[in-house]
């Protein structure tokens, strides 16, 4: 079951431009872990529930990825060129995305309008059943991708 999202979401599915950068030797608190844990104890009667849970997680991950891509497009349209976005499943139905952007754009007062526009988009996306939080991270020479991965932001996207 390890890599279910990679196989079902990433390959030939919606999120094919997204990379799953999780290290299988490290225990992250990810959807896959939940599913793995659930499966290890599942009996015949529970397999149906597992399938439903898998579908919910997959659908929500796709929604989170799709939402990030919409925000990416909005940023491009407003003259911001994102460098990458890193997505984490934080809890059941809850995701956090880190948009890495240039420092000058981050510090520019005009970025406030873009930020407000993205918040309005996120308000429309979020519901009682799904929550996406977003942060903008100004890139620097000290940018530490290992920490991002260690914190569970295992899905990355740069539109390439």
């Amino acid at each position, binding site marked *: 079951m390890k890599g279910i999202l990679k196989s079902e979401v990433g390959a030939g599915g919606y999120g094919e431009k997204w990379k799953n950068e999780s290290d299988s030797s490290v225990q992250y608190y990810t959807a896959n872990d939940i599913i793995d844990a659930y499966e290890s104890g599942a009996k015949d009667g529970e397999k149906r529930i597992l399938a439903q849970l898998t579908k919910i997680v997959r659908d929500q991950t796709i929604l989170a990825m799709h939402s990030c891509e919409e925000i990416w497009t909005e940023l491009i349209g407003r003259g911001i060129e994102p460098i990458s976005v890193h997505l984490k499943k934080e*809890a059941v139905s809850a995701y956090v995305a880190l948009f890495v952007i240039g420092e000058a754009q981050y510090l520019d007062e005009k970025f*406030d309008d873009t930020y*407000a526009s993205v918040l309005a988009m996120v308000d429309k996306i979020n519901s009682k059943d799904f929550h996406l939080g977003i*942060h903008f991270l100004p890139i620097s020479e000290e940018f530490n991708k290992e*920490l991002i991965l260690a914190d569970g932001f295992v899905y990355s996207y740069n539109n390439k």
Partner: protein
Amino acid sequence: MSGYSCYGHANHNREVCLLLKREKKYDWVVTTAFYSCIHRLYDAIFPLSVIIGGKVVIFNNFTDYSKHFREHSNMGKHEILGKAVKDSGISIKARTAYESLKGASFTARYNNYLVPEAHAMHAISKLDIIDQECESIRTSRGTSSTS
């Protein structure tokens, strides 16, 4: 009786923030600016009326608001405050400043906490926006600037 007040603690954290700026401890400037804004918002946006299930529910403070939404959602404390800020009807400028400050505080780690002065000043400018709006809210409801 406790000497704590949200407003007083916001002021306390702001003073520490500005002290740390003078000491050029810019990573902590960002952190304390965020801490200050949290307490400033606790003070300004509560009591908060929210329509839940078609009924108006009044939450007197963030603790009550957080308790309710922790029991009825899977949001964490910071997501719940973000929802309260949105529910409060505070200006989009102040809400954006809050979200920006929260992001700066949460993500400093990913640049190894090496926060340049420009980022610290950026954080203080966001805190100023929040403080200004919250002070305006206090004035409109007739709350003393010392309480």
